[in-house]
């Protein structure tokens, strides 16, 4: 192979992010001795960057940039904030949003509040940063970032580069997609806390919550590491889903292979594709790898075990108890939003995938004390795949039942709509417009800014069709 051919090979690997340190050194040596190749490299690099710019170019990207820039300007009076924000289109900036029907009403207030906080000095205290590790590629709901020496950044936006730090997805309806420089992607969803670092290799610490990762093949000796409170996962290149809680970690591997170390006793196992394992703090429990069970199409809540968020009320009428909404404050700005929220895990009491099928219905039994809108939501993922978006349906309750009386609610799966419609339009394969055909991850309901005294005693999913025959035995 002559030096031109070798240069092309190394240069292509460099642009693809696949060149290791010795390769970079070799590339450096080749171009050091040949000005022609150096110019060729720079020409190629500049075209590469412009192609990237063209690919990213979109109206929403411009809006993100403009709004983020304006938010960083120092203000000389309060009119500045209102003035700037009134100029921005309703749909931008595409920052975190919560229940979408509410958002039109609240977005301006949230954006303005965020600017006020920034003007107070948050942005201008930004310390010098290190190299970006990940970039936010999609974002929804209450998500905040703590990085750079503890600086809390609530005003995240799509496209923002992040260095080492902690990402918190704060609510049932919130999630964030992150992309590493090598194309590996990670999605955190629901109430999740994820710390990201990349010194010698990519390292994630999922303190609690749900994570989906599609990991590009990693260099030898530099596997991606995912730490949870109860396990350490070594990932070479794969698609996986993790749910972490203080006392257990549930790992499902869809592609590739993941090595799992259970922290309580150091026992190690490997999880191949289409298998799963639960690593708990119980050292007497077997660290057993099992083939992913066939999905079921029906599900019933097991309260209070399944409760992810809410307030457990031991007795309600003739039921054994109920999960009442608990307040969750979003933002520390002038006009914060309070969600009164109940969230349930679908996998906590039974690690069997739940498939959402045509004709399926949720039946919810509970109590509501005052009239108003209630938002019901689902988190989904692709069958044998990663995060597939969140879906919502709204119900208005006009008649308030007498205290102690239950309400029965029926919600058809066909009535659920994507929480972020623009994402569905942009990436229909990744974020379908219907939850049908997807796996259910969690379920929640909430009211906004009004505590309607909502309590849930039972949730079930019924399907009209029989369990699918396809799937692993």
């Amino acid at each position, binding site marked *: 192979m002559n030096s031109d051919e070798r240069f*092309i*090979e190394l*240069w*292509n*690997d*460099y*642009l*693809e992010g696949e060149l290791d*340190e010795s390769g*970079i*050194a070799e*590339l*450096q040596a080749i*171009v*050091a001795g040949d000005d022609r190749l*150096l*110019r060729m*490299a*720079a*020409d*190629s*690099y*500049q*075209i*590469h*960057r*412009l*192609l*990237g*710019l*063209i*690919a990213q*170019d979109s109206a929403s990207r*411009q809006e993100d*940039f*403009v709004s*983020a*820039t*304006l938010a*960083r*300007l*120092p*203000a*000389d009076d309060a009119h*500045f904030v209102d*003035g*700037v924000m*009134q*100029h*921005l289109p309703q749909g931008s900036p595409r920052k975190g949003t919560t229940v979408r029907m509410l958002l039109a009403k609240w977005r301006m207030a949230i954006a303005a509040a965020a600017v006020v906080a920034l003007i107070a000095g948050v942005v201008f205290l930004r310390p*010098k940063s*290190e*190299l*970006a590790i990940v970039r936010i590629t999609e974002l929804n709901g209450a998500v905040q970032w703590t990085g750079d020496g503890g600086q809390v950044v609530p005003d995240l936006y799509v*496209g*923002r*580069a992040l260095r080492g730090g902690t990402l918190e997805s704060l609510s049932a309806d919130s999630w964030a997609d992150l*992309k590493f420089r090598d*194309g590996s992607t990670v999605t955190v969803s629901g109430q999740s806390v994820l710390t990201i670092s990349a010194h010698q290799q990519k390292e994630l610490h999922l303190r609690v919550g749900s994570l989906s990762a599609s990991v*590009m093949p990693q260099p030898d000796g530099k596997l991606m590491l995912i730490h949870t409170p109860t396990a350490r996962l070594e990932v070479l290149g794969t698609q996986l889903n993790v749910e972490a809680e203080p006392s257990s970690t549930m790992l499902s591997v869809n592609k590739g292979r993941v090595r799992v170390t259970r922290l309580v006793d150091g026992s190690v196992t490997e999880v191949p594709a289409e298998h799963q394992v639960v690593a708990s703090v119980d050292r007497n429990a077997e660290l057993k790898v099992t083939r992913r069970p066939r999905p079921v199409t029906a599900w019933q809540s097991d309260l209070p075990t399944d409760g992810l968020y809410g307030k457990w009320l031991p007795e309600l009428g003739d039921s054994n108890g109920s999960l009442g909404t608990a307040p969750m404050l979003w933002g520390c700005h002038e006009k914060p939003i309070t969600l009164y929220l109940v969230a349930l895990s679908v996998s906590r009491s039974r690690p069997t995938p739940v498939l959402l099928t045509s004709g399926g219905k949720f039946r919810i039994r509970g109590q509501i004390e005052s009239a108003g809108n209630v938002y019901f939501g689902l988190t989904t993922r692709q069958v044998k795949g990663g995060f597939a978006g969140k879906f919502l349906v709204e119900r208005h309750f006009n008649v308030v039942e007498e205290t102690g009386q239950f309400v029965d609610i029926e919600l058809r799966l066909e009535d659920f709509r994507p929480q972020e419609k623009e994402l569905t339009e942009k990436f229909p394969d990744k974020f379908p417009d219907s939850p049908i055909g997807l796996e259910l991850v969690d379920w929640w309901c909430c009211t906004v800014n009004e505590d309607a005294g909502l309590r849930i005693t039972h949730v079930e999913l019924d399907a009209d069709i029989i369990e699918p025959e396809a799937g692993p035995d």
Partner: protein
Amino acid sequence: MMTRKASTNDSLVDDAIRSVRKGNTAAFEVVVRQLERPLRAWLAVQTPPGVDVDEVAQRSFVAAFTRLRDYELGTNFAAWLFTIARFHLRTEVSRLRRVADYHVRYAPDLLQRELERRSSEPPDLQQARLEHLQTCLGRLGEHLRRFIKWRYAEEISLEEMAARSGRSVAAVKKQLWKLRRELYACVEARIAAEGEPS
């Protein structure tokens, strides 16, 4: 050096700056909207790997805003902004150089120096390159343009590209190399033709 027509509306920008100086600071949005694309295009081709283009661009706009009283109306705000951006870029690159293993991990030192050398090119040349590149892309056959779409818009892996196209990963890498070279040649030919007397 050839002269190019301004890609931004200078009078619109100056009107907005007058308005900002009178206290209507929200008018700075007009400035950002007019200049964000050329500034990001210029930064994209000057910055070595590891530099966040949007971050430098935003810092440049903020710096220009805070020093707006130093700008003399009618003297080309875009040029003034690019001078500020060049300063911010150098600061960022200097900082990166001090990161111990930056060159080992991210960028061959010589590439960075070559990019720096090119940073003296007129900023609007990069905007023109961007526009010509879009034209050149449009002239590629669909069977070739799909590789660019996969790589830059969909950002799929080389393995996925190989699977979709029925070629080997090595062949896909070569195809991308060839396409970048062809697009570069197309852009430079159009730039050169633009500079010739009609």
